């Protein structure tokens, strides 16, 4: 087994502009993802909006996310799975994969033994 993070990126303005119905559909999709993934999900959280981020660069503390891009990190899951294909099948259930303004980045987690 190996650990993967699923990093969910998207346009914060579009996330905030979601109607209550869209928000509910979004949450339902995430519930479906968690149900399908089962105990392969070993962690994960939704993050507050990128405008609440604080960045440390060297000794300078500044307001905002690390990179000034349109798409910001909105949340993450930590998954344990056998291989990348297993993760890909699950990750395709995430609603952010289908929305035009967002996407999911899958990164293996370094195994420090």
């Amino acid at each position, binding site marked *: 087994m190996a650990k993967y993070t699923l990093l969910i990126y998207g346009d914060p303005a579009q996330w905030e502009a979601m109607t209550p119905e869209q928000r509910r559909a979004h949450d339902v999709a995430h519930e479906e993802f968690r149900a399908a993934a089962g105990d392969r999900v070993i962690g994960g959280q939704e993050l507050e909006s990128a405008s609440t981020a604080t960045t440390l660069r060297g000794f300078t503390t500044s307001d905002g996310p690390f990179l000034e891009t349109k798409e910001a990190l909105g949340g993450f899951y930590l998954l344990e799975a056998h*291989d*990348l*294909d297993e993760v890909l099948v699950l990750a395709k259930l995430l609603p952010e994969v289908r929305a035009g303004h967002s996407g999911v980045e*899958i990164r*293996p987690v370094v195994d420090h033994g």
Partner: protein
Amino acid sequence: MTSVADALAQAHRRDWAQVLATTVQVTRDLDLAEECTQDAYAQALRTWERDGIPERPGAWLTRVARNRALDVLRREEALRRRLPLLVSPGTTPGDDRLRLIFTCCHPALSREHQVALTARLVCGLSTADVARAFLVSEPTLAARLTRAKKKIATARIPYAVPPPEALAERLEPVLEVVHLLFTTGHTAPTGPSLIRADLTASAVQLARTLHLLMPRSAPVTALLALMLVTDARSAARVGADGRLLLLPDQDRTLWNRERIAEGVALLTDSLRHHPPSRFSVEAAIAAVHAEAPTWEQTDWAEIVGLYTVLLRLTGNSPVVALNRAVAIGFRDGPAAGLAALEPLTAEPALATYPYLAAARADFLSRLGRTGEAITAYGEALVLTANETERDFLAARAETIRRRGRRADPQPE
């Protein structure tokens, strides 16, 4: 009596992927499997010289590579446990070669990584050869292979044939890569020779393997058909003096009729139950050319029609549009061809594509617009890096320059 070198070269072409793929099953590690496969071929050179060529060279090589791998693993049992596992425990027994191809062309790898891995691991081409074919330095290619293999190991890209529901999507990059290997060999992007037969032969071999393993896959059948019909004409593409010969000037008796017939039969088969795909339409175009008794008797109306279908299937690819314009020129005359090419001169994707300038040059010279034709040949010359093509273009420009001078009124 075949020499050991010939037998080994043949075994390299035909069996490399199988030997490597079987060895990966033992080592569960691509690097180690590759090393053991190389060792087996080196061992073959020595042993076959002494004991003669075995009856089944592929089986011999597989056995030696496997044994070598088992030796290494026994010695390094502790290390092995720490090596990343390539094999998923759930994989069903199937063809090892197929798994190897699907691993190398996994969509999580970039196209350049897919190509490098497939050429190196599945075709068994040397790092130097792959680097030369794809215009990168050897260290760059070696680094690319290392990164790709590292990603396979750390991201755990499975060593498996995808399940049926994912097959169509996963097959696409595989076919793209095989096709890219073939086209790179068909007109080498650089260097002294027009054709890199090692690349085209590897690509055809790979497509044959895929077709053997998935005989009912329409895109696989179509790709094999396309490559066979195209490859069948390769002996006629270069003259005795090494010069490039275009279709009208080729000696059609040099075309490999057997290969053309095989390709056309496959194409018919792929079109029987399936809608046309990019590869099947390209194969159909190649087949119309291959079946025309002479250049003059080519069915240009049919070819223009097929290019129109292809244009739709490729989402208006500018290169397809260029080929269609050229076909229009042969159907309706050079003025029509030139008019069809005109809108493409503003296409950014074709700005550095030598064949646009070359096609314009040809139509201009047919129309007697010699000065403009020479300028267009000059543009094409600047853009091509293949020496055979350069010689061809330079000779063309020189011919019309001389013809132009002769046409000038000469004082008696």
